[in-house]
């Protein structure tokens, strides 16, 4: 009693388990280890409108009512480096890289936005 036969697994089982493991590895690499940076960055100023590809590194100076806001695009990430405004909220927003994210500087009338449908959610509750 309480014995198991040997060699019960058949070839299909090994193939199935291997396939599923490969699928899991593929999905992990696809979802968690891929570099998904900004694709297209739209910058709107008081008298300025521009669209830039996210994969090219560049520095953009946007002229506003208070002065020059310096926006940097590097490695798919976008951030505001310098701003003449008082609160510096746009600098404190940090770096953005996902579609639909925004950096807004209200005093200097600058909006930096990554194009695309917003993918991230704020929170999930059950």
């Amino acid at each position, binding site marked *: *009693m*309480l*014995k*198991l*036969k040997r060699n*019960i*697994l*058949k*070839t*299909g*089982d090994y193939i*199935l*388990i291997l396939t*599923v*493991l490969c*699928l*899991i590895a593929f*999905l*992990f690499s696809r*979802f*968690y280890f891929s570099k998904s940076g900004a694709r297209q960055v739209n910058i709107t100023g008081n008298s300025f409108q521009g669209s830039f590809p996210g994969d090219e590194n560049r520095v953009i100076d946007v002229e506003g009512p208070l002065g020059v806001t310096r926006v940097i695009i590097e490695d798919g990430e976008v951030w505001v480096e310098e701003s003449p405004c008082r609160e510096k909220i746009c600098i404190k927003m940090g770096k953005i890289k996902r579609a639909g994210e925004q950096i807004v500087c209200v005093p200097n009338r600058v909006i930096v936005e990554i194009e695309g449908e917003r*993918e*991230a*959610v704020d929170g*999930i509750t059950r």
Partner: protein
Amino acid sequence: MNGKLYISNTMNGKLYISNTIRSSEGQKRAFFIAFLGAMAISLSIIEHMVPKPFPWMRIGLANAITLYAFTLLKPREVMLVVLSRVIATSILIGSFLSITFILSFSGALASFMMMYLFYTYLRKFFSIVGISVIGALTSNTVQLIMVNILFINTRLSYYFLPFILLFALLGGILSGWFSRFLVENI
């Protein structure tokens, strides 16, 4: 009427229940449906009681009973076992007709269909462990798709898919091993 029931699975795969009263083949089958259903219900309730970080992190021991039922009963009767297990468990736990129930119901039905197809047509290539893995994968994937269709509706929840598949694989192998133990020893 006071006799004991002796259940055994004979070599040719037919049901054999000896009893002091005479019982027909239909009665034996009905007894087996109820017996396996009760086993599955108790196993899934035990599994619900075990604390776990995510609700989908389950071994699916009730699935092992379904597989064991495939070796004893006709597919239609196995479906009765599955349905009675899902409905009775949800009533006992208190989630009948709630979101949890919809999810587990659809997952159980889909995995039953897949396991039925694999068990009847591809048994040459897959052992009971492989069929159990198929069932677990189907059940978890269908539940995720149902969550997407009915409630969340974003692509974001597919980020769970690799985790869910990984745990389905592990749970499927474990419950397949368990059902293999059942098939070979009872």
